[in-house]
């Protein structure tokens, strides 16, 4: 299995999902070699072998590569630059991500949106050499991400020659080149697990290179796991994949006891919470717009915006423009205990995502006893009947739903009670059983 992150060092839902899934797969007696670009220490699961891609020696048998980049800049002549010899670290032509000044220095997923340099292409010339070396990985989502995925693929090919396994299971596009390399080197079946697509993350302004990696991955795979029907439909319509090749495997949630929640003093009786990256995908402006309407009916309501991301300055500006700053609380990016603290004061959680492949946060809110409103454009809406569902662009309806939850206590208690009961059925064990069956069909 090839992943990109694994708890405790995670920056998004992908690592959490990989943890839940591998843990439950081992209960099904599946032996797992889990490869990550970089082990940060603390990764531990019984019966799972972790492999640090940065420590895998790669043999270069009588080969050497000279890479030149051809850079086309509109209005200028094509130039050829010799970038490096012996292929190890290739300069990335991905520029650093936008608006870094508003976020923590470590680049997390919340900064996930790409800006491209002018088109470049590479020409590789092989030269003989004899050596072994290892690749270096940051294991994050930094500016070198696309190059890291290529190096990761080389590691995958090398590993494949050393190890015995029956199936290759890769998680999201960063690992797709690795999956394909492993598939080509071993001839074993490849499962690509799609936790999100470029269209979810970027709307229509997709990075064509990421898209191409995704498309190649889903095309070359032997089977695809999509985290929701929503995602499956995107794969069918945007990636032209046959529906039969895709199985929906909803995420699970790791049970957590409600009693463990830290409690902080209440900031008001009506607290509406947004928790997620402030990016296009998560629809923060719809939240602000709905909040404006809710305040007409509940002037004392408070709105927590927990998260950071490239839209952060615009969201703050919009709130200020509407003169609602006194009702809004921006917490920045939150982790662990601080998230639980936010839950402890929230009357309702709102996830107005524009396109959410799954969306584990609403389930975490439910686990913490907070009723949730989610967009219909989310995978979680497919598995959680006990949530209020709205179309993300219908801010009137969203505001209406928020008002209703604030106004009618019996609505809130019924949502809480039923949803808390429902998530008992949304387990990784169930998902693992399904995936194990798919493994058996492919072997």
């Amino acid at each position: 299995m090839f992943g990109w992150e694994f708890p405790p060092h995670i920056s998004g839902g992908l690592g959490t999902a990989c943890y839940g899934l591998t843990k439950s797969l081992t209960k099904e007696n599946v032996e797992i070699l889990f490869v990550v670009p970089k082990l940060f220490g603390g990764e531990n699961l019984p019966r799972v072998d972790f492999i640090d891609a940065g420590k895998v020696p790669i043999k270069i048998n009588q080969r050497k590569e000279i890479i030149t980049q051809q850079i086309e800049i509109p209005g200028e002549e094509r130039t050829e630059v010799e970038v490096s010899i012996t292929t190890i670290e290739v300069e990335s032509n991905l520029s650093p991500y936008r608006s870094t000044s508003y976020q923590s220095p470590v680049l997390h997923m919340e900064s996930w949106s790409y800006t491209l340099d002018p088109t470049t292409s590479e020409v590789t010339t092989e030269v003989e050499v004899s050596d072994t070396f290892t690749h270096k990985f940051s294991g994050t989502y930094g500016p070198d991400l696309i190059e890291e995925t290529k190096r990761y693929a080389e590691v995958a090919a090398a590993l494949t020659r050393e190890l015995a396994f029956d199936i290759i299971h890769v998680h999201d596009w960063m690992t797709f080149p690795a999956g394909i390399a492993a598939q080509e080197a071993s001839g074993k079946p490849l499962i690509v697990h799609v936790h999100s697509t470029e269209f979810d993350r970027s709307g229509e302004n997709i990075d064509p290179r990421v898209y191409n990696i995704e498309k190649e991955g889903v095309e070359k795979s032997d089977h695809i796991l999509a985290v929701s029907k929503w995602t499956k439909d995107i794969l069918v319509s945007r990636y032209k994949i046959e529906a039969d090749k895709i199985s929906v495997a909803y995420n699970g949630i790791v049970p957590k006891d409600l009693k463990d929640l830290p409690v902080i003093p209440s900031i008001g009786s009506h607290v509406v919470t947004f928790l997620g990256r402030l990016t296009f995908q998560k629809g923060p402006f719809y939240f602000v717009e709905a909040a404006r309407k809710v305040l007409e009916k509940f002037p004392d309501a408070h709105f927590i915006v927990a998260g950071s991301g490239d839209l952060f300055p615009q969201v703050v500006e919009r709130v200020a423009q509407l003169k609602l700053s006194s009702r809004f609380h921006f917490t920045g990016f939150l982790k662990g205990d601080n998230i639980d603290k936010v839950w402890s004061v929230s009357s309702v959680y709102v996830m107005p995502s524009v396109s959410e492949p799954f969306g584990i946060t609403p389930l975490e809110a439910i686990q913490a006893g907070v009723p949730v409103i989610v967009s219909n454009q989310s995978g979680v809406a497919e598995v959680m009947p006990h949530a209020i569902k709205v179309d993300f662009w219908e801010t009137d309806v969203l505001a209406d739903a928020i008002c209703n939850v604030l106004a009618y206590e019996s609505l809130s208690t019924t949502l809480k009670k039923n949803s808390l009961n429902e998530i008992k059925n949304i387990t990784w064990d169930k998902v693992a059983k399904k995936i194990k069956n798919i493994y058996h069909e492919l072997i």
Partner: protein
Amino acid sequence: MNLSDTTTKQHLVLYLQVHQPRRLRPFRFFDIGSRGEYFDDKQNKEIVERVARQSYLPANAILLKLIKKYPQIKVVFSVSGVAIDQFKEYTPEVLESFRALANTGNVEFLSETDHHSLACMMPGDEFEIQVLDHTAKLHEHFGVRPSVFRNTELIYNDEIGKRVEALGFNGVFIDGVDRVLHGRSPHHLYQHPDQQGLKIFTRNYNLSDDIAFRFAHHGPLTVERYMSWLQGIPAHEDLITLAMDYETFGEHQKQNSGILNFFEGLLKALAKQDRIVMATASEAIMNLKPRDILSVPHYISWADRERDLSAWLGNDMQRDAFDCMVRMERDIKSIDDSDLLERWRWLQTSDHFYYMSTKKNDDGNVHAYFSPYPSPYEAFMNYMNVLNDFSYQVSEHERHPLNNQKAGAIRSEAERRELHVPTWAMNLQNSYEH
């Protein structure tokens, strides 16, 4: 066929329920205070017209045709007041076809609460008022006076039985719930533990649901197969009570499933044999002796697996919504405004609460099938917003009270009684003739 023959034979009572609620229009939280319209007349008209076309009219036509040919066919209907009112507004031809059936004398109409409500769960005499309203409505439209009662969704307990008996009814339909029958067969007439005048029909829910819910699952069900089940019932079990929604025939089960052919075929097959005799409820009461006393200390109904009140009052939202509606009674009745009162009663229709059920699995699917809302939460929100706006309207009335409003309300209530009492008093007389 003389009377002594009939009394020794197995009776089959087929009771069909006709009901359409007045569904609410989408009403936002932000609409509260707008004093807007609450009921989605357009949607209600469309649904009533569709069900009339697919079910009521063709099924009534079959029934009328067969009764003319086979006078031994007997059927029992209960048509809710909200349905009658909507037929009058939207599809008078449906009302006309029921009238034609009533005129055959082979069809008995049951009494129920006019608004198909949970009034039996409300304090005071709202239940009695609604039953009498319905009785008057049946007389007005079909020229009949009912002597047998069915409560909304067959909700029943001993206390309701007492109230029903006090209103002058001599029979009541309930569901043949196992925990009430305690191993006894549903195929008998039973009797209220205290009120000897009240006979109880216990529905065979298995045989009823074989048609209503499992028709298609049976491949589909054939008349021959169903008749063989009926004929397999031992001869000493003398009363088979089948009850289901009339909309089963053509709406819940669509026409292309062959359900209407089954309906016609079953009635014909029953007419052509003489082991089982079809009877109206009143005939069965006249011909059969109650087998045993049937005590029902706790509420039962015909809904969901639980067969209790949980379909309408099972979760916090449902109870909250119902309580809020009930709490308006005093204010509304202190205003002499029949339009306001009528709209409040439309809001009592059990369907509104049924849509708010958060049950899962098969029962949840049935709730969802009937609901015009995407989820129970939308159903609750919409209802509460309407109710809040309605409260707002009512409170405005109080600020501008009519002169002598209290006296007026009391007077109009007295007039209602005046109007109704003879109806059921006469009916009471009739029922003692035998």
